[in-house]
């Protein structure tokens, strides 16, 4: 079923909307949640929460890309669950991703500057745009979709060590960009 039709079902408050969403995007959402949480039970619960969130948010929201919108919801819900239950346990998944993303943190700036969400988003957007398509996909498949490094290495035909090196270079590049933009997190 086309996304526009599914969204129309939400707007009509027709509960078929959830069934259709589950059928079309269930696997996709589960995959993201599982990558982030590393727990099938938690992933299933997160996906279930996602359907509720979609029902509550649409309307008034009208996503132009339902897949991307659902993915964001899954990421946010996964993070919330991780915060509640797994933070202290240092489980893999989000813990690993956050640990890697620490390499992207700019050094603290000496000039006082309040973080503007827009500035960070704009800087990140511009940095992603300047990457080659394959590097951009690599970065987002790792840090948006949570794809494990081993799987990414296989996709790219690289050894895990080479891939890790490449990912480190990308993270360092982002860090430099954020520092140049004077962004303080």
């Amino acid at each position: 079923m086309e996304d526009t039709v599914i969204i129309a079902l939400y707007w009509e408050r027709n509960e078929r909307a959830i069934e259709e969403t589950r059928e079309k995007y269930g696997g996709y959402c589960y995959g993201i949640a599982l990558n982030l949480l590393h727990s099938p039970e938690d992933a299933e619960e997160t996906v279930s929460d996602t359907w509720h969130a979609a029902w509550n948010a649409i309307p008034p929201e009208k996503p132009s890309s339902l897949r991307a919108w659902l993915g964001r919801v899954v990421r946010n819900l996964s993070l919330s669950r991780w915060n509640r239950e797994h933070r202290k346990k240092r489980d893999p998944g989000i813990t690993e991703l956050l640990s890697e993303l620490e390499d992207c943190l700019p050094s603290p700036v000496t000039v006082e500057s309040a973080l503007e969400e827009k500035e960070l988003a704009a800087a990140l957007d511009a940095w992603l745009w300047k990457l080659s398509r394959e590097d951009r996909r690599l970065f987002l498949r790792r840090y948006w979709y949570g794809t494990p490094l081993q799987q990414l290495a296989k996709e790219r035909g690289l050894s895990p060590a080479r891939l890790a090196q490449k990912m480190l270079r990308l993270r360092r590049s982002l860090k430099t960009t954020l520092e140049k933009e004077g962004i303080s997190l």
Partner: protein
Amino acid sequence: MNEDRVLVLYDAITAVREEYIEEAAAPCRKVRHWGAWAAAAACLFLLIGGWSFLQPLGFTIVNPFFRAGQGDGTGGSGGQDDTAYHYYAGPVLPLTAEEEGLTAEREVEYDFSLYDVSLKDDGRYAYLRSRQACLVTDSYMLTAGEPGTFTLYYPFAATLADDTALVPTVKVNGEVVKTELVAGPEGDTPFSWEDMKALMGDDYLNRSLEALPRLEERVTVYALSDFHGRESKTAKNPTVEFAYTQDPVKTAVTTWGFNGGSNDLQGGKGSRHVSIRERRGSTAYLLVLGEDLTDWSIRGYADGACETPSEGVGATVTKYESTLGEMLALFWKDYRGAFLENKLQVLLNKNALLGLSCGVLLDRSSNLLAAVRTLPFGLEDVFDQVLHRSRVLYLRFTADIPAGEAVDIRVSLVKYPSYDHTGRGRERRGFDLAGKLGSNIAFTRLEASVTGTEHIVVYRQDFGFETENGVLKTTRVALDPNREHWYMDVGAAPKKK
């Protein structure tokens, strides 16, 4: 872990634009590609006569592959095939030809005389010495199975924003020849030999020679000119705002010459503004692809944030129809003036630059509206990419090879070293050599030599030179012509007391 800070970044990544999320949904590819359009790049016709690297003071040369901050921070482990540098200069690449059936004996000389610490830093060599450049001579005795006129290509790694001094000089039988410049497809920044191989991939030269796209897509142009508005105590940064409403599906908007703005892609409302004192040119352009704007207005403000209206600030709006290709050509003309005269792009055929720009857009998406929507700021981003992305350039020239005779081809070029800017290897300078990459010439003999050896120490090398405590004891070696790569890491020799 700085969890709170990282989580802010996590959230920002969550919110990246949908096109990128969709793009990354499919698994990454093993084989690199150079664009959705038929295979990259420009024919850039440049006639060069003469030895160009001995330039007077004042030129600046940009590293072809340098991206500040990129690197694994683990230090200079040298040029082994599976290691990387923070900045990889690329190898000396071999000559190739359009025609098949050529054989050659090849000699490559690395001259480290610029590492002589006693040299005065005069205008001629100061910059090259500061970059610890090496002067390379890549020589060939070329023979052909059948006599004739052959089209030859000498490759070198660069970006289009690099200085013209990086362009090699070619001599055929002792005479300097005129060459034409051909730009290859852009690719991922290489950090190692392996990355370099991936950048060139298969058939790089043929892909460099393929025709470029042109964009005949109709656009509606809103040109803002005759800006007026003075700075004063009450108007510290007079700014003109062009606000508009568009159909978010059927319309895409991009700009040239604006300073900033906002665009609500979903809601369909946007604005662009020009700070009168900071504007780049006399005219700013807003281009509309697809259906025209449903509404627009222009307003003057006293400040760059567009918060305090000002009646005395404004511009004239002229609306007309054109094509995206025509507008890009106009913008290139505007853009070129912003650069110094000694940059490669200044010498390029304008149609070639235009073709590359079209290719950048089509590489983003074959749907131009979608491609334009991915531009963060405006068409200036396209031009930045054309100029600064890594690629291999070729010098094209011809040579007559008579029956039974060999032709002497001698190429002189400046090579910057590869290096790490932090870490344990940061004192080392890497120079490497490609034996066969991208060449269709059969090499029957290959030798490497080093001069100026008293000015360097050798940390690591796999050429096969004999060394003792970093000092070269032999300065010439025969290499296996079938091997693909060699490297050496050197440093400046300590000053003798």
